[in-house]
């Protein structure tokens, strides 16, 4: 920084207006309304119907109508309002289409699961009974003679809750503490880089590998072929920890540094700052991160099949033998119906189990929102 006090020389070139500078061309924008795009949309709809009536494949017709719509909108707006508005409308169309493309499969999936699984799910037998002692004969009676459904997924619901619960108990502390280490203690250290790399690798591990890992670990620890709920929980934890670490790291990172400094400057030790300022501030994000991680593993099939096995009856003791879980239950009902000749009741059970899984995930997500609300930093006057 120089200290000379001479006035700075006047600017050599005087400031020119943007319009006077060559090579700058400003785009024209004229007022316009949405009416044209609505008209075009209507036209495209008519075209779609026409094409379908003419015998074109409906999907192709839809694409064709959409492209025509984009073209018409572009031309119409370029002539009335200028190219920028035209481009804006085209992109609105593209973004809207992407939205529809994303939502349609989701809604259709939900509808399929609800319509197929709903009737069986509300059947009292489904949530109150296990498959213990249920054979193809009962299914035959149900499908052929209209006898009430016998055999449900009570044991699978319990199994899912127990195993996922244990998996969460294992992975949430490990994951959150790892994230705390990464963000608060060693943001740039060697160790952190290695951990981050390993976590990234773990995120990509196929779930069956996690199952085989738990199976092999249990074989070493408790003897070959040992299958129980804890093995399943370990397999799920292997899948979950990396997600929990990643999500929590993100959430801790967005806690403003100023809050940490404010707390430290009050003479609060670091660990207490983390426990009482950083974690509460990040709590809502942490909660939703954890629920997402749970939601991701709750529907795992392959690792549980390998590590937990398949039980027909209720087993609430995760240290003792095979248990059942909803995803595995659905898998079995689809692939190995009790009575190959009378598949209906088994398929119904599978759909109901799938719906139950979806419901659990929805409930998890909703509760994450409630928790997040409860913890969220208070704002407003």
């Amino acid at each position, binding site marked *: 920084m120089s200290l000379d*006090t001479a006035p700075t020389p006047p600017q050599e070139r005087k400031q020119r207006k943007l319009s006077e500078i060559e090579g700058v061309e400003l785009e024209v924008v004229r007022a316009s309304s949405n009416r044209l795009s609505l008209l075009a949309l209507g036209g495209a709809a008519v075209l779609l119907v026409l094409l379908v009536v003419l015998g074109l494949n409906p999907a192709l017709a839809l694409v064709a109508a959409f492209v025509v719509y984009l073209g018409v909108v572009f031309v119409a707006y370029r002539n009335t309002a200028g190219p920028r508005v035209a481009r804006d409308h085209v992109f609105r169309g593209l973004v809207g289409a992407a939205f529809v493309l994303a939502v349609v499969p989701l809604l259709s999936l939900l509808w399929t699961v609800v319509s197929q699984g709903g009737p069986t799910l509300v059947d009292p037998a489904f949530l109150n009974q296990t498959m213990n002692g249920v054979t193809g004969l009962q299914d035959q009676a149900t499908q052929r003679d209209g006898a009430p459904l016998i055999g449900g997924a009570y044991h699978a619901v319990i199994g899912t809750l127990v195993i996922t619960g244990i998996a969460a108990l294992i992975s949430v502390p490990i994951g959150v503490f790892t994230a705390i280490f990464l963000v608060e203690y060693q943001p740039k250290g060697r160790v952190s880089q290695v951990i981050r790399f390993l976590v990234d690798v773990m995120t990509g591990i196929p779930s069956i590998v996690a199952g085989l890992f738990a199976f092999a670990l249990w074989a070493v620890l408790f003897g070959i072929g040992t299958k129980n709920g804890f093995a399943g929980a370990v397999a799920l934890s292997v899948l979950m920890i990396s997600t929990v670490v990643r999500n929590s790291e993100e959430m801790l990172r967005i806690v403003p540094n100023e*809050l940490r400094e404010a707390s430290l400057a*009050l003479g609060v030790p670091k660990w207490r*700052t983390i426990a009482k300022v950083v974690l509460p*501030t990040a709590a809502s994000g942490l909660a939703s991160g954890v629920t997402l991680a749970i939601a991701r593993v709750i529907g795992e099939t392959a690792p549980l099949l390998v590590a937990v096995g398949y039980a027909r009856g209720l087993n609430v003791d995760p240290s003792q033998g095979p248990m059942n879980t909803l995803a595995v239950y659905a898998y079995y009902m689809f692939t190995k119906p009790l009575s190959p000749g009378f598949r209906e009741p088994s398929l119904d059970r599978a759909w109901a189990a799938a719906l139950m899984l979806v419901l659990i995930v929805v409930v998890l997500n909703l509760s994450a929102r409630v928790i997040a609300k409860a913890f969220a930093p208070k704002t*407003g*006057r």
Partner: protein
Amino acid sequence: MSKRIDVKNLDIYYGAFHAVKNVSMTIEPRSVTAFIGPSGCGKSTVLRTLNRMHEVIPGAYTTGEVLMDDKNLYAKDTDPVDVRRQVGMVFQRPNPFPTMSIRENVLAGVTLNSKRLSKSAADELAEQSLRGANLWTEVKDRLDRPGSGLSGGQQQRLCIARAIAVQPEVILMDEPCSALDPISTLAIEDLINELKSDYTVVIVTHNMQQAARVSDRTGFFNLEATGMPGELVEMDDTQKIFSNPSKPATEDYISGRFG
């Protein structure tokens, strides 16, 4: 309360970057000391070494001594947490804890350290600190509302209340008014004037009038060129600095004739 601080041959680094070079100065108790100087010359950096907040930044370190009543804050057996309990800090941007109410914010320094605190003691401490920060009348009816719902100036005074609630010896303020309107600024300047009867106050400011209004002594920091370490050019009674500084650089800076 309120202690004297002697800084001796302090060099401050951010990793390999030498940010401030060879600062020696004395900060008198029960007085207001202002740091002025151009942006980037290391005022905040020096301020943060006075309560060992500098070393919170990864890779940052210092050499030299900071003595508080002859006790070296950087001695091997000094705990930085202990230093920060004695030397409070108010930051440039108000930073109340978003998860806490106004009352909880004021008491944060005590409760976060999980000292036991009875309801009546908490009430007394909260009221006393808020009165000390000239905020009591404005918030006494909404102590349980979130602190982030206050205006910027009120939030800053809340942060001051939070800092004085732990009853430190020294209060450091880094541009406490830079985000505030003139009225809130005046409120805080008045407050600083009151605080100096109990505390040693050090304030960083870009506002020369403010330095002249509130401080008893002023230190002028400068740096020779970007990339070079900043240094303390001179430190003297505020009156002297603003009327008859001994270094030409100071004269240039305060009269606005500057690079």
